[in-house]
């Protein structure tokens, strides 16, 4: 039982981490809380369904293709929707809410509103310390962990990763060093959305897919981003583990109906006593549209 709870918590946490890391990076570079991030997860899942069921590709290939597809979608969105609004934070928030409705409608017109499933990727179960776990769930953990690690490596070691981190620390300073803020925003948005798409593909193998699956995720992701501290990768991962394990433990040993309340209480407490989140810095001003 305990092993099962731990394994489930681990799986949830890793998937939450994948979704929330992208959101944190987009927030860090563009100062936009992208409400439509959950819809990118949905597009990833839908892409997996089409690649695996209609085009009969295997799981690994469709993971790669769907991730790239959603990443490109993210870049296009950044160029069309967010680039004209750069620096206007409040209208951009509201724009991204409008984008949620539009993308959900696109999803339902393109894919239909009924629930869909993809075929089980790895049939069978494994036994770990007496707990029985489906192989398809266990398989997700190394993939999600590897993606997170790869993104961490990308941010820490590559040129563009450094540029993104510099931009999120100080925009003016970064552009004085010859970093193109526009390109950085596109890369951050593209890579963040790609991670969301990958999370969608992974989710598709364990839950039902429908055009509205992003809604439940996006609020969890917001909680994680703010508990962890914005613009901090490590904080986000820690927060993802806190939320994931809270969820798996509470839903087994107590009533799942209490989960939202507990998460909200944790969020409120952390923001009151540590306004910058567990790891991170506080942003001073919600820059409304004022020049």
């Amino acid at each position, binding site marked *: 039982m305990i092993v099962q709870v731990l394994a489930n918590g681990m799986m949830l946490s890793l998937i939450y981490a994948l979704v929330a890391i992208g959101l944190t990076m987009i927030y860090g570079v563009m100062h936009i809380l992208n409400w439509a991030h959950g819809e990118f997860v949905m597009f990833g899942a839908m892409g997996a369904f089409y690649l695996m069921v209609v085009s009969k590709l295997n799981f690994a290939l469709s993971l790669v293709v769907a991730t790239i597809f959603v990443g490109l979608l993210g870049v296009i969105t950044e160029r069309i929707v967010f680039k004209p609004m750069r620096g206007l934070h409040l209208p951009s928030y*509201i724009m991204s809410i409008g984008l949620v*409705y539009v993308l959900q*409608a696109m999803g339902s017109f393109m894919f239909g509103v009924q629930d869909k499933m993809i075929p089980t990727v790895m049939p069978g179960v494994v036994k770990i310390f007496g707990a029985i776990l489906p192989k398809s769930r266990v398989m997700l953990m190394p993939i999600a962990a590897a993606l997170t690690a790869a993104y961490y490596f990308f941010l820490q070691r590559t040129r563009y990763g450094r540029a993104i981190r510099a931009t999120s620390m100080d925009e003016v300073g970064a552009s004085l060093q010859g970093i193109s803020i526009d390109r950085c925003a596109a890369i951050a948005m593209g890579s963040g959305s790609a991670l969301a798409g990958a999370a969608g593909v992974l989710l598709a193998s364990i839950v039902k897919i429908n055009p509205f699956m992003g809604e439940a995720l996006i609020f969890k992701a917001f909680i994680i981003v703010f508990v962890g501290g914005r613009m901090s990768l490590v904080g986000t991962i820690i927060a993802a583990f806190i939320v994931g394990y809270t969820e798996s433990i509470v839903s087994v040993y107590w009533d799942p109906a*209490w989960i939202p309340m507990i998460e909200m209480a944790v969020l409120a407490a952390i923001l009151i006593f540590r306004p910058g989140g567990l790891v991170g810095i506080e*942003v001073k*001003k*919600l820059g*409304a549209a004022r020049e």
Partner: protein
Amino acid sequence: MKGNELTMDKFKQVKTISILALIVFLFVLPGITSSPAVMYIMIWIFLYSLVCGTFRFVTMTGDWTFAHVGIMAVGAYTSMLLTMKLGWSVWPAMVTSSIIALAVGMVLYSLCLKTRAVTFFWVTWAFGEIIRQVFARFKHPFGGHIGISGIPGPTISIPGFIEIGFETQMSYYYLGLFLAVVIFLIMYLVERSRVGLTLKSIDVNWELSESLGVNVFGYRLLALAIGSFFVGIAGSFYAHWIHFLSPADFGIGFGILVLLYVVVGGHKTMWGPIIGVTIFIILSRLVLSRLEEYLMPVLGLILMLTLGLFREGLESVPRRIFPWIKATFTRTRKEA
């Protein structure tokens, strides 16, 4: 310069007259058409204007609260409890519930006021959600997830003289109109006074205000308290008009809608929320009656287009268009 002042005076006169004309028109509207559908939409517009207008009032200090809808739920539920469980009449319950909403708001916001900006937004989001979850969790007094129905409507009765029961939509129309006019008038007067200017100065630069001796914490709390009190009244009105309350009505969706109307309408003046609410409610009712499944994407597209074109909201449309028209007309006059 003198001519400029004259036109400014004229502009103000035109504005005052048109506002008075609008209020008079709204008072006689039930005489022109008293169809329940029109009344129903108009009451929704009054209610949403109240919620969004008070929200806009709070944002004058730069505190974009997300617990506003939660405070409204406190007002609504308190009013429900007082009338249904304690058997109070509606009017004292309305006043008491808005005072309770004020008290809850004060306690909650004084915890949050350490934070600012985005952080404030999300702390208040968490608190609003906690309030809603409390209403959803406890079945006994609040009715739980399913909600509670049969909330009595108000009556006006002076024994032996007059007896008015609120049975038609028209009576609620007048109640809503009365509340909206009174509350907007109070907010207008506060905004124009010294207090209002102080509140705005906090938004522009709170550190500078503090260094000039402004009690920033106190003024922010004051704005939030006024907002909570009025939105408590709005919540109570909602409860007695709809006769049904459920926690789902005060969810994140409603909060987002309020935020959306205010930003699309514009938050610089108190007309912005009214414009946003009127346009979006009429639009959504018109679209909804024809093609329901396209409602959300169409609204989303309109929203994105409006914000892309007019970043300060719809209230800035005349400000942007008038100079253009004026330039065009003066040119034609010169040519002629």
